[in-house]
């Protein structure tokens, strides 16, 4: 498999990373080099092998379905680049560019 400029543009969009047009070709070459190198895994016979997502062999623990935190809107907003505390509401908001018309 070989990644061309168009594929890189597409995955950069999926990853929401702006890549300048003149950097696409160089990036495609770099990524191809890495992908070509990892493709040696095709040599390994893996029929019937269960894929391993985690080395931890435990069932995920459960806890009582109770509220265990909250009420810390101020802390949640503390690092926001553009926090907005709207008057008349009990919490604040993260301001972002308009998303609805």
């Amino acid at each position, binding site marked *: 498999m070989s990644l061309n400029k168009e594929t890189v543009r597409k995955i950069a969009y999926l990853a*929401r990373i702006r890549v300048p047009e003149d950097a696409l070709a160089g990036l495609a070459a770099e990524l191809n080099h890495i992908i070509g190198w990892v493709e040696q895994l095709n040599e390994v016979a893996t029929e019937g092998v269960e894929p*391993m997502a985690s080395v931890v062999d435990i069932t995920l623990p459960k806890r009582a379905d109770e509220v265990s935190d909250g009420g810390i809107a101020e802390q949640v907003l503390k690092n926001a680049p553009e926090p907005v505390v709207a008057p008349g509401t009990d919490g604040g908001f993260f301001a972002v*560019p308009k998303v609805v018309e």
Partner: protein
Amino acid sequence: MTALTGLSIAAVRDGLASRDFTAIELARAHLQAMEKTRHLNAFITETPEIALERAKQSDARRAKGRALGPMDGVPVAIKDLFCTADVLTTGGSHILDGFKPTYESTVTAKLKAAGAVMLGKTNLDEFAMGSSNITSYHGPVKNPWRGKRNDDLVPGGSSGGSAAAVAAGLSACAIGTDTGGSIRQPASFCGIVGMKPTYGRCSRWGIVAFASSLDQAGPFARSVEDTAILLAAMAGHDPRDSTSAPVDVPDFAAALGKGAKGLKVGIPKEYTMDGMPAEIDKLWKQGIAWMRAQGATCREVSLPHTRYALPTYYIVAPAEASSNLARYDGVRYGLRVAGKTLDEMYAATRGEGFGPEVRRRVLIGTYVLSAGYYDAYYLKAQKVRALIADDFRKVFGQVDVLLTPTAPSAAFAIGEKMDDPVAMYLNDVFTVPASLAGLPAISVPAGLDADGLPLGLHLIAKPFDEATLFRAAQALEEACGFATRPPGFGGNR
């Protein structure tokens, strides 16, 4: 005062207990050393006020006869990947500009509760992605060791600042994180001990995530005993991390001093790599002889899928990273670069906020997880990962620990290996397999190369058998008798 900066944790513990010095004196000596060696760029943020305050509290506790334990009053440097309340936490990235967490990571909270004195936040590769500390937005760290050519050398990575700080005597110990070798390789490059515990031994809560199925916190120090003492203060079950293991933390230090008699050491034949420098091979063979002289038995074992570990890692880790790093969107914290639409703001922020290596890995991860490629790359890698873990399971039916080199070279010059990402990735060829299998592993400084630079040997043990790992590591440490300080940063041990 300078002698205070060369002390081991064990010596600090004893010195504080017998009132030879105070925690305040100790903190001041280390803060002064940090100030004098800022050219190393080991710290992104120094926290002298916190250090002096905690040292004061430690002295006050001790005066009342309420000292907490072996870490009370001990200076420690924190990799800037651990969230620390109200202290800048950058992850080495531009995209976290100005981020001051409102909470403390579990591991640093445990250290604080044990009385440890935080000196500052150490430099690292951006989001822990790198083997040289060169990808940090805050500039490269210099290794306190210098070869005969007197070049500025890398300290390794990603926990390069932590390793450099301990090697240079700026801190008695440090904590780092290890995803594919990020504690062990810099420990080898800087001539100190660095240890990655079993996956699940330390809580990941509050650690800036890179690859969640691999990330583990671990200790750096100048002796095996010290890493055992420090790990005991970091480890333990945490309900806030669902992968944190609900198992007891044994007294690691109690396993020490028992020697290697009767230990079965495996030597994996697949770790002999084409083009491996003769010096690395020689040190490895010397390590086998040392372990035998200490009473261990050594035998060759086979881990057939070893050579596939690195390519497996470079699918799994970027895939997980691409998902974890999706949170950096310019909305809730850190850098925001304006855009006309929300999508444009995301793309502009992430385009400017991520450095080239992070961008590369997020794109690789996005690609291998994308429709049409998931099975061919990501699922395939997960299957090979299962085979690699199975190789280890089989050999640990025959032996107690495995002995390998830590890294395929000594520290290289800043600026080298920059053109080819794959060449840089090869730094972790010996450390990545244990990471994929979640096994505990340690790098012990074992010798110097022809250029006078330190080289480490690497031991791997069974899951949750850190006690045996420390025991074997101490036997190796004793046999090699490595003088652990770089020239110009000397001091007693």
